[in-house]
């Protein structure tokens, strides 16, 4: 966990208001775990102060990749940072996805930009089992949903990793017509249950995943987001309501097990 200045290697508009920025950051790449995030200083010189947190999408040697959506002032400023510009980062921060045991079948659930941290996770999962006991890599199925076809990101990247990708769009322009959580619900009714579920996306989607996890007793982890101050656990600004009281999304999370969170308070 450190504060470093990283050079922008590229910052490209993928489609609509989605961008991918690649930063030269050996220190962060060395220590990053899937599910962790970086807290980026983007607003210097503007009337706005706070850093913005972004999950780590991928690391490739010394290159740190962030997949993000422009939704406000901070992300808008980030989208304008050009190649060779320097950015001040804090990271890697937070508790990442927990990969404890050996598992055969994993389901990843992504809603919109929520797909971002799951790519890094999928790459790591595919190495995981072989590291533990020389066993075969797990079978990964990604349930990827968005409002419309153009907002489905990274589908091919996951296929290239060897994952099965199941797509849902609310307007039916690609794949299953409806919510990704409904697609998952129907799948769970008919097919064998996974050993683990990892999900990231809008809160209503995560609530449905939590319900399915309870119903089918699936060990599930979710990545949450919250407006952050310090990003390192000191200010207590980013809390969510959990069974054990308030937990900090930046330090106790952003990854939580579904059972930790009081979903009706979210």
């Amino acid at each position: 966990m450190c504060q470093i200045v990283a050079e922008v290697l590229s910052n490209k508009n993928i489609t609509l208001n989605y961008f991918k920025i690649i930063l030269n950051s050996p220190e962060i790449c060395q220590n990053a775990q899937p599910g962790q995030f970086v807290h980026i200083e983007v607003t210097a010189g503007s009337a706005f102060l706070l850093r913005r947190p972004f999950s780590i999408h991928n690391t490739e040697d010394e290159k740190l990749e962030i997949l993000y959506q422009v939704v406000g002032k901070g992300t808008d400023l980030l989208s304008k940072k050009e190649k060779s510009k320097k950015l001040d980062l804090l990271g890697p921060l937070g508790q990442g996805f927990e990969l404890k045991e050996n598992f055969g079948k994993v389901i990843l659930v992504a809603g919109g930009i929520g797909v971002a941290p799951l790519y890094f996770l999928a790459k790591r999962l595919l190495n995981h089992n072989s590291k533990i006991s020389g066993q075969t890599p797990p079978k990964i199925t990604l349930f990827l949903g968005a409002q419309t076809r153009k907002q489905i990101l990274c589908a091919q990247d996951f296929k290239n990793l060897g994952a099965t990708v199941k797509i849902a769009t609310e307007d039916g322009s690609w794949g299953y017509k409806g919510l990704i959580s409904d697609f998952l619900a129907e799948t769970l009714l008919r097919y064998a249950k996974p050993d683990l579920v990892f999900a990231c996306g809008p809160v209503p989607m995560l609530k449905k995943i939590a319900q399915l996890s309870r119903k089918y007793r699936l060990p599930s982890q979710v990545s949450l987001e919250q407006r952050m101050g310090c990003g390192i656990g000191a200010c207590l600004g980013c809390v969510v309501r959990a069974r054990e009281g308030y937990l900090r999304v930046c330090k106790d999370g952003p990854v939580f097990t579904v059972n930790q969170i009081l979903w009706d308070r979210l």
Partner: protein
Amino acid sequence: MNPNLKIKLGRISLNNPVLAASGTFGYGEEYSRFIDLSELGGIITKTVTLEPREGNRPPRLAETPSGLLNSIGLENPGLKIFLREKLPLLQRFNTALVVNIAGEKEEEYLRLAERLNRVKGIDALEINISCPNVKNGGLIFGTNPSLVFSLVKRIREVTDIPLITKLTPNVTDIAEIAQAAEEAGTEALSLINTLLAMAIDVETRKPKLGNVTGGLSGPAIRPIAVRMVRQTFQKVNLPLIGVGGIMTPEDALEFILAGASAVAIGTANFIDPKTMIKVKEGIREYLQRNNIREFKDLVGWLNLN
């Protein structure tokens, strides 16, 4: 020429005039990974209350132009856990340690003060008077001179440790409050705490904070804080710690010239954890550039012609 940055606030000796303000710094643990806490003049802890406090419902933060709105709600683990789990780390650093205390009744402040009074490593207590006095219909202690006088006097009677009173700016005349605290026996004052404020999300038509209102901090409040330090400096004969939106050495110098003997930095730490170190070095350079050997000579040096 290496200027002397040491400064005394009553009986409290600081190696340099830059402290971590209460609230944004926790109990030092998180920031100790980014900076050497021994380089700071002092650390003012997050408020400690007698019993653990859960804090307010989220969202607790909202960004405003040049500012930050927060409604954390004094979430803290309470006195017992502070002493057992938080204090040991803080005692390891070679920097002044100030523990900020708060309560909803005078009795709570007194019990906290008595318990912390002779604890090794604690150099002063900062009395947070921005809390509602439950016995007085929720009136904020710090908005009423007689409540402030009574509270500080009673704390003074049960302690010998140096006392700093942290003033709230949500008053008509801060110098009046300052005088009440001075008469009651406080050894120093820190000002200002956050300004009561609010933000609204126009799409959801809801307040941005779960608690509706919160405290505003950051550069937006600095001019108000500098003015209040100046007004207080003119009315009381106590060392002052200037707080409010300091981001750069120049910001800190404004407070010092207005009359502050030291400064505390909070919100800026979120943006750059190294802010306090940079401010300290910036003050040193300023003194060198202006050929001033002793930092203390700068305090209140305001040219009014």
